[in-house]
């Protein structure tokens, strides 16, 4: 790879890693703080992406909008819509065992996917929405534009991280941990367990929606293919568990490392003979699936176990 190719690869790698880091921290707020199993991350991500796309893209005759609004409006809108969806899911099954939440969230992701494909008046169906802007793109062009966007993404990561850390060390975070570790005793000291859980699920959903918006801006074009539920949902779970659930640093590190591993397996499988190359993506899935099992059985606490941090 020549230098500029490598440079673009690296920038795009870090940009995607940043987007995954936002989702991973968001999942940490749900799972790591609250013990809430969200198996429908792709749904929240997709609804955020489409909200931002519709709000910020240039006017189109093929679907509602685009409204050509500022990117910040798109981000807020994405967070709001995804948060609303999270509220609905939480309302239904927050009082039940985590498994039910997992089923319902998979269902919600499926409904979102169906709606995106079928409601073409809103989403332009399987063709997707194009002409999604990036911040400051009329000032910077070419190579510097990529770098500017990378900085923008990582500023968002930083913001997400700081908010999550703030939450973690706030009284709210302490209550959440108490609930997660012993629901009964938390309830007995007068904490409304369901209320706190609902909050943690909504906050997580908001950031997943924002991450969706960020990736819509990154791709500048968003279609149902980009919300492949497996890739988004599954990879993020592997990231969080490998990094260390309950710990935002772990979530961040997990996102970077797993995304690096994932991207490297792509480089590796490209070297395979052509008859295998076509199946390489399945081989990668197989490997990441096995990797998750390994982590679950041997390194459950992740790279950055929560405990060590809790003592301070």
């Amino acid at each position, binding site marked *: 790879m020549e230098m500029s190719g490598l440079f673009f690869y690296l920038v795009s790698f870090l940009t995607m890693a940043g987007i995954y880091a936002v989702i991973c921290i968001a999942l940490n707020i749900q799972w790591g703080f609250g013990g809430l199993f969200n198996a429908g991350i792709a749904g929240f991500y997709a609804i955020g992406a489409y909200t931002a796309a519709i709000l910020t893209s240039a006017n189109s005759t093929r679907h509602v909008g685009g409204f050509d609004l500022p990117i910040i409006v798109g981000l807020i809108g994405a967070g709001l819509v995804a948060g609303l969806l999270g509220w609905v899911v939480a309302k239904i099954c927050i009082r039940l065992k*985590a498994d039910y939440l997992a089923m319902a969230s998979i269902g919600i992701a499926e409904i979102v996917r169906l709606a995106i494909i079928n409601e073409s008046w809103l989403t332009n169906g399987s063709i997707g929405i194009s002409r999604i802007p990036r911040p400051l793109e009329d000032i910077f062009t070419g190579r510097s534009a990529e770098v500017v966007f990378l900085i923008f993404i990582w500023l968002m990561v930083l913001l997400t991280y700081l908010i999550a850390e703030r939450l973690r060390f706030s009284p709210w975070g302490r209550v959440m941990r108490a609930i997660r570790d012993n629901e009964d005793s938390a309830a007995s000291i007068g904490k409304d367990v369901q209320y706190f859980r609902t909050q943690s699920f909504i906050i997580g959903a908001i950031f997943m929606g924002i991450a969706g918006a960020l990736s819509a801006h990154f791709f500048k074009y968003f279609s149902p293919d980009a919300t492949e539920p497996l890739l988004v949902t599954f990879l993020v779970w592997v990231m969080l568990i490998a990094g260390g659930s309950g710990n935002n640093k772990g979530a961040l590190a997990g996102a970077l490392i797993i995304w690096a591993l994932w991207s490297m397996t792509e480089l590796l499988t490209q070297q395979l003979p052509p008859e295998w190359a076509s199946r390489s993506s399945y081989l990668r899935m197989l490997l990441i699936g096995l990797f998750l099992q390994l982590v679950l059985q041997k390194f459950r606490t992740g790279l950055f176990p929560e405990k060590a941090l809790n003592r301070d």
Partner: protein
Amino acid sequence: MIDFINYYLIPGVTLGSIYALGAVGISMIFGILRFAHFAHGDLMTVGAYAALTTVWVTGLPALATIPVAIAVTCIVALLMDKWFYKPLRALPTIYTVIASFGVAMLLRSSIQLIWGTDSQVYFTGFQKPMIFFDTLRIASRHIQFIVFTVLIAFALHYFLNKTRTGKSMRAVADDPELASICGLKTETVIRATWIIGAALTAIAGIFVGLDTDVHTNLGWNLLLPMFAAALLGGIGKPMGAMVGGLIIGIAEEICTYPIFGESLIEPSYKSAVAFVLMVIILIFRPQGLFKGRLL
């Protein structure tokens, strides 16, 4: 009216039979091992592909390959339990849920590696539907599915109520701690659970393959309605899951029936019906119709 029966009710019952067979395993695994098994759909896909290879090798009709498909699926199920679920047994069950999510991925990508991603069929050609009373049209394969499912339902009922293993399974589903206090070996019961769950889902997989085609997302796509069926019937109630499967299958088809000239929902949203029913159950009757366990 006859159109309703031909094009909505009978396909609904057929689809319901498939859901029913898959949901039995989900309900029992949830009841006995206490976790929602997200790889159950992909286990179904394993059964469908095992039958496919057997059909290719032997030239037998697909239904005749059921024993092979069951054997393969059972072995896969027991191995995945041994390798991926058993090591997590002592932990909170949510870890097993995560593991099953990963196993779903493992099974699917293995199938994609071995068989490729093109859709396949067990046989080519068109089956003429059988016509009764001049107007009632049923595809002969649908008759086979329904008859098979009814027979399985009877056999399952007998097994659960009359045999020692069956009663032990119900006891563990009721209260695993008490069951082990009573000296029942949980691991034996768990093995039986996997074998029955895998066998029935393998049969369902062949039915799906016969009805449409065999593809790598075959089982995963049916996971949601199967979960809904298991919840509707009540967790840990296999017979309830069968009834639940039937209800979900019929509901999905009927919702697209043009009652007043317009169908209740767009056919493209058919798979949302199961989800809506699931949500209604979770809100109003989370223990299911047949008083299953609320975990």
